[in-house]
């Protein structure tokens, strides 16, 4: 055990070099770091949001809303199909997550089912292994259409992927530094944005579905009548933010939708100087909008965003150029944000914020300071104590401890693992447990020497006997760290990772480094007695 094999010495030297090299960038100021030659590592510790400030959001895709929307569409599709087939029907509505319709003449029910199968079930081709929509007929003219669970799950999955893509486009345009947007579980998305100075804006950009439609204003009844409950079929009363009325009655059918936009930019109105969002339609949108405005001159249309009317201008002339502008009560920034949302596209389903955590950069800096002071005091206290207790051997243990810290920080910088505030406490405890390995070895050496062994034999047995306990003890620690990593989230994962790296480096430094140092010392001094006995 005490013979200094070459690989051990090499491993010790290499690890010390690695530790210094990869920890170094953290200690240098940024400009020095940038001017380092290319082969030098430049990565610094990846500080958690609690240390550098930033926002963490856990979002859930509202799959229930997705299903509701699918059902509403299914009702409309069924209506259209049956009308086109000229099959009279009644009681078309959603019941318990299904669409139910009564065919007036039960003899026509089979024809109706076939028609529906051809059109409705074909609207979205079924996922492999089954139809998306199953259609049943009870013989009495009642037809039920239901969405299969598999199809909904697949659709929710697609919606999450699509949402991630759209969120990334939106957040990138805000100029946020290195955002991470990842899926968590089935229907959740984690957004992390370090250093975002304005979490409110981030949330605004994420929180809006940004579903834009252009709909005609229904002026067949007055607003008062509509508010009293006489809303004509095919129309709906929507809240308005245009600054004139609190509600606007609009026709349900959308003339043009946000998907038909090709570009949106913030600009200023040439006459009023107010901030507006100017946009451009694709060819389909331009044609539809041109036709609709040509026949409706003098009437009003509403620009509806996420179920709210933002403005309802009067059509002065046919708009055929394929571009236009949205005016409303905008500030330049809110107009710009809306333009970003429109460019990135609408989310397939609303996102609910389930968890939010925002840490100011200043608080993060305080935490770093507190962490560094705690770590320094803890480290120095251990070193003083161990040197007082074990003298020269304590110095060896202290050297191993310093290399241990360098290795942990180096590996964390190298792997870009996140160091969190609780992780610093984990690091401190790791150091204490690392020293425990040395204490175990040294106490064992003392026992063996007291039992009458020669120094070299005591060293030999001390290391080999203590190693068993050290490994057992550290494997149990590693188990708890792995569990934390598996079940924990955010800061806890960082904590667990710090512990896990620490377990590995501690065993190496406390056992191998001290062994090499003591071995070298022994070779040079050939002592008759050990200093700790």
């Amino acid at each position: 055990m005490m013979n200094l094999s070459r690989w051990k010495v090499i491993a010790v030297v290499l690890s010390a070099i690695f530790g210094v090299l990869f920890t170094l960038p953290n200690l240098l100021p940024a400009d020095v770091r940038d001017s380092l030659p290319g082969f030098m590592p430049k990565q610094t510790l990846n500080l958690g949001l609690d240390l550098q400030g930033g926002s963490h959001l856990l979002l859930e895709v509202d799959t229930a809303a997705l299903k509701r929307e699918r059902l509403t569409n299914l009702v409309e599709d069924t209506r259209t199909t049956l009308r086109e087939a000229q099959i009279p029907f009644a009681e078309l509505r959603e019941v318990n997550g299904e669409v139910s319709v009564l065919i007036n003449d039960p003899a026509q029910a089979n024809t109706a089912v076939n028609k529906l199968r051809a059109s409705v079930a074909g609207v979205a081709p079924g996922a492999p292994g089954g139809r998306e929509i199953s259609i049943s007929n009870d013989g009495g003219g009642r037809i039920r259409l239901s969405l299969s669970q598999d199809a909904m799950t697949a659709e929710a999955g697609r919606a999450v992927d699509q949402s991630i893509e759209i969120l990334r486009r939106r957040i990138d345009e805000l100029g946020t530094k290195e955002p991470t947007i990842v899926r968590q579980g089935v229907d959740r998305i984690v957004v992390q944005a370090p250093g975002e100075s304005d979490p409110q804006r981030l949330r605004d950009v994420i929180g809006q579905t940004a579903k834009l439609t252009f709909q005609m204003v229904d002026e067949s009844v007055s607003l008062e009548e509509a508010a009293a409950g006489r809303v004509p079929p095919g129309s709906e009363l929507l809240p308005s933010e245009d600054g004139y009325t609190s509600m606007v009655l609009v026709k349900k059918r959308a003339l043009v939708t946000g998907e038909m936009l090709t570009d949106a930019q913030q600009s200023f109105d040439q006459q009023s100087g107010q901030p507006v969002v100017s946009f451009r339609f694709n060819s389909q949108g331009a044609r539809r909008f041109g036709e609709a405005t040509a026949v409706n001159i003098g009437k009003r249309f509403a620009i509806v965003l996420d179920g709210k009317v933002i403005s309802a201008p009067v059509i002065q002339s046919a708009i055929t150029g394929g571009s236009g502008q949205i005016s409303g009560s905008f500030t330049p920034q809110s107009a710009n944000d809306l333009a970003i949302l429109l460019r990135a596209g609408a989310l397939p389903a609303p996102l609910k914020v389930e968890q939010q955590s925002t840490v100011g950069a200043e608080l993060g800096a305080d935490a770093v300071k507190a962490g560094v002071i705690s770590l320094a005091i803890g480290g120095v206290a251990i070193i003083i104590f161990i040197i007082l207790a074990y003298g020269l051997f304590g110095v060896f243990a202290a050297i191993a401890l310093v290399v241990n810290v360098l290795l942990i920080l180096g590996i964390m910088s190298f792997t870009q693992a996140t160091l969190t505030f609780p992780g610093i406490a984990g690091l401190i405890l790791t150091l204490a447990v690392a020293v425990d390995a040395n204490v175990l070895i040294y106490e064992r050496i003392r026992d063996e020497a007291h039992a009458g062994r020669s120094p070299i034999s005591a060293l030999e047995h001390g290391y080999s006997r203590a190693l068993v306990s050290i490994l057992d003890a550290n494997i149990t620690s590693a188990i708890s760290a792995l569990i934390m990593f598996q079940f924990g989230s955010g800061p806890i994962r960082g904590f667990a990772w710090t512990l896990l790296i620490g377990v590995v480096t501690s065993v190496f430094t406390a056992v191998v480094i001290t062994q090499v140092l003591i071995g070298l010392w022994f070779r040079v001094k050939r002592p008759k007695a050990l200093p700790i006995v």
Partner: protein
Amino acid sequence: MWPLIRILPREFHFNFVRLAPYAAILSALLIAGSGVSFFTKGLNLGIDFIGGSMIEVQTKGPADIAKLRATMMQVGGEDAQVQQMGAANGAVLRFRTAEGVSPVDGAERIKTELSKEFPGITFKKVEVVGPKVSGELMQGGFMALGVAVFLMLLYIWFRFQLQFGLGAVVGVFHDVLLTLGMLSLTHLEFSMTSIAALLTVIGYSMNEKVITFDRLRENLRKYKTAPLADVINRSENERLSRTLITGSTAILALSGAVFFGGPVLLPLVITMVFGIVVGTYSSIYVALPIILLWGVKRGDEPAEPLKPQAAR
């Protein structure tokens, strides 16, 4: 007399086992006390586990806690708690949002109102946890504790004998119960970080037990005919200097964090320090007595120390 280790006597002759009955009474009383505190006072659950919002603010002048409280009452944070924190101009607000309102929107509204009432106020930290997530976090946290203890039991069973594993697990449960009792009594916040601290306590405590058992197993092989109680006493006396040095190192290491870690680290560090003390104690006075009461199989273990030995 430097190094100081030489001051320690070469051999200790302390009768650990004789004190075991008293320790058992002490442990029982402490556990009962923890239980009473746990069920009467309960844990001060953080928003991680019960959902809700927390805002850390800094006001321009010294924080007017009464006015903050009054404002919170007005703007509808349900069961709002306002506490001074850190410097004189710092405060932390905890509240829940009325049902039916998105908690995130609720927190935003309160921020807006506070900005109106207290010009120059800054929000250093805002945390909002929805009820759905908090339930899952709680479940995940306790699941982690359970799985960790179970896996360690398996490992110790594999490395030693079953009664060692059970002794260790009972010891760890003892530590967890006392730590929960301490958290309940001191009313320190119990958050996801506390689960991490508990897991660390479990890790440290297991560590202690493994080291205790290791020496015991070795001595059981060495002194095949000596009574178990004597072997236990002998092992603990041999180990005593290490126990003292490691325990003090660990507590010394955390001392910096106790005084300078600030309010975030404090609950974590206090839990760890408490766990170190309790874990060391329970290795000697919970895990070993259980083995003593149960007895161990002796003489059928081969004398090769390095091979893992499964229980038979």
